[in-house]
């Protein structure tokens, strides 16, 4: 069971909470203690809007353990409006063709379960074609 390592990331996972550097105002995701832009100390939380566009994407047919029941699924690098790229799955695609540059928005979904059906459910961000 990996309860603690998922539990402590709930803010980041559920709501895309990153950081804003108090020194250079760069927005950071995932959060880290040292600003990658200016090297200053960074720990001011910042909640991203969840809006962005697809930077690149691919579909996974041979999934790693823990994701087999979701295959095939699409993962993407999403360029957030505030700057950072994030890695996440695309969801609710239905018959929508994915394209680089496609506007997407964050939703909170079930990422996987910890172990089998007895394990905790791990929720986190995914992105879907923008509806708003």
């Amino acid at each position, binding site marked *: 069971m990996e309860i603690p390592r998922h539990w402590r990331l709930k803010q980041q996972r559920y709501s895309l909470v990153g950081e804003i550097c108090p020194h250079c105002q760069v927005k950071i995701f995932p959060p880290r203690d040292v600003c990658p832009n200016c090297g200053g100390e960074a720990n001011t939380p910042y909640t991203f809007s969840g809006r962005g566009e697809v930077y690149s994407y691919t579909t996974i047919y041979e999934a790693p353990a823990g994701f087999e*029941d979701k295959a095939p699924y699409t993962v993407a690098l999403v360029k957030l409006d505030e700057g950072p790229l994030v890695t996440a799955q695309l969801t609710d695609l239905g018959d929508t063709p994915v394209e680089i540059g496609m506007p997407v928005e964050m*939703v909170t979904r079930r990422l996987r379960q910890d172990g089998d059906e007895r394990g905790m459910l791990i929720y986190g961000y995914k992105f879907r074609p923008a509806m708003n």
Partner: protein
Amino acid sequence: MTENKTLLKPSRPVGIVGYGAYVPRYRLPAKEVDRMWAGERSAGLPIKEKAVPGLDEDVITMSIEAARNAMKRAEIDPAEIRAVWIGSESHPYAVKPSSTIIAEAIGAAPHVQAADMEFACKAGTEAMVMAMGLVGSSMAKYAVAIGIDTAQGKPGDALEYTAAAGGAAFIIGPADESLAVINASYSFVTDTPDFWRREYQIYPEHGQRFTGDPAYFHHILEAGKAMLESSGTSAKDYTWAVFHQPNTKFPQKVAQMLGFSPEQITPGLLSPVIGNTYAGAAILGLTAILDIARPGDRILVVSFGSGAGSDAFDIVVTDKLLERRDKALKTQDYIARRTEIDYATYARYRGKIRMK
């Protein structure tokens, strides 16, 4: 107007400060169920199609989105929320609240009440009445009430045609901040075993035709009549009405019995195109009405939950609705987002394929 001491009326006026809907993307046509289990011979199908959640969706994820939509319209500080209550018969955990996850996701934790309700299809309105009580007593400024389900019907059962996914969330707060004021609610509850699901069972059982007159109709009629009577109103005093909708016919019939016209119930009658969303059904209809209502419009909502009971609400729209309702996706936006699936995909999405 007769003084009705059974009416639930808050001592401080309350209302809906924000509302939000959610309906998942996928649709299973009823004719697919018919094709699979009834040889495509059914004369009439209970609905056109039902909403089916994706592989990564459940009551928690759907509630988060509905609650976020409600927050967008409410424009309040989530730290001022004192309760997150969610009614559902399909909570992902048997033990472990859905509500704590939702509270965390919308920024309402940690200074909140959080609990999961269960009362079949009226668990959501149950949460609303509780929220009215908390806010109406001035114990809290805001409370979140959600009714959402990802209902399951036994393969081939009559319920499989309709058991759907969707629901709504409401931020209940002081009337002077509300998009719609809730004048009062009334609840009518008896021990009527028309439908249930025993512990550890995947699919529910139901009393077939017994679910009609002694259950659905009796409770909705009693609750509806009591609300009209104690409010000194009749159907014509309401612009809109919405009733629990397990199929297309029942809500049409009960509306007629209470004196409502088809025009009054049409905007809130979503079951033909999304199915029966259980705890979400009546209140999702309410969100669709709020999406089109005008200030001053009066709305009667009557839910029904098997087991059995009904909650009735007398609601009046305020001016604030117009300035805030466009701040989030509308119910019809979700209904229009639609990808049809076949029975095989449905079986996979709903976990009906044995994987081990």
